[in-house]
Structure formats: C-alpha cells, structure tokens
C-alpha cells in the first residue's frame, strides 16, 4: 500500500461520517425546512470529500481528472436543486416550525 493509497483513507472516512450525519438528520428533524438543511449541506460536503479521496487513490492519471470534474459539477448543482425545492415549498405556503 503506497503513500497515495494511505493518504486517501482519511478523506473516505470523513465522507462516510458526513453521510451518516446527514441521514440521521434527515430522519430525526421535526420540520421540512430543517431536513432540507441537513440533506443539502451534509450531502454536498460528503460527496466532495468522498470524490477527492477516490481521485487521490487513483494517482496521476486521466481518470482522476474525470472524477474531479464530477466533484466540481456536484458542488455547483446540488445547492441549486436544494434552493429550487425550498422555493417551491415557500410559494405553496408551507410555514416553518416554531418552537413553542
């Protein structure tokens, strides 16, 4: 196991930890908007870390650059789709949850 493969392990573990945190948030939060926070931010960071870890595992080849392209696309596209869903919910009149 050379140095490149050993360097990619913390990235992959961090990605898995953030996926776990985002899913637990999706299950346990009380309202729709808070769940959208959890999956929008947590999922984006987790995918970014996982893809960087996988591209470092590969070394300096053409496939690693392609995986980095996917990572950049995900970084731009996922917050936009979260924004689109929350805007649709706001227009339909869904009220946020207020702590009593």
């Amino acid at each position, binding site marked *: 196991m050379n140095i490149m493969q050993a360097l990619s392990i913390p990235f992959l573990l961090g990605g898995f930890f953030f996926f776990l945190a985002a899913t637990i948030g999706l299950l346990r939060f009380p309202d729709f908007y808070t769940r959208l926070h959890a999956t929008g931010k947590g999922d984006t960071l987790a995918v970014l870390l996982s893809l960087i870890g996988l591209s470092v595992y590969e070394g300096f080849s053409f496939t690693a650059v392609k995986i980095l392209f996917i990572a950049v696309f995900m970084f731009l596209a996922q917050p936009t789709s979260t924004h*689109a869903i929350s805007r*649709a919910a706001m227009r339909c009149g869904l009220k946020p949850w207020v702590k009593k």
Partner: protein
Amino acid sequence: MGLFFLVLLCLYRGVFGPGVLNRVAAISAIGTKTLVILLIMGYIYQRVDMFVDISMVYALLNFIGTITVAKYLEMSGEI
C-alpha cells in the same frame, strides 16, 4: 457496504414522509449516495474507467429531475 444501509434508512423517509416535498428531498439524497456507491463498485471490480462515465450521467439526470419536479409542484400550487 455501510453506504447501502444508509440508502435504506433514507428510503424510509421517502416512503413515510408526510407530503410529496419530503419525498423529493429524500430521492435527491438517495441519488447522491448511489453515485458514490457506483464509484466504489468500480474500484472493487477493477474497471474504473467504465463506471466514471456512468456516474457522471447519473449526476446530470438527478439534477435535471429534481429541478423539473420542483417547478411542477410550484405551478400546481399544492403540497
């Protein structure tokens, strides 16, 4: 292996979420987890070049699908 279990947990919210908007968010999260699972499967089977193209196409389709459903729900005017 652990990611597959997380996908099943997310599917629970997709089935039981009150209203359609919770389900849309859950499907987007499932799609993102599927992408990483596809890449890891590519590493297990030693054919990475093929699975990278497939996962990029799935990222595109997930993005376009979520925006389409959001626009339809906004125009129809109900949850």
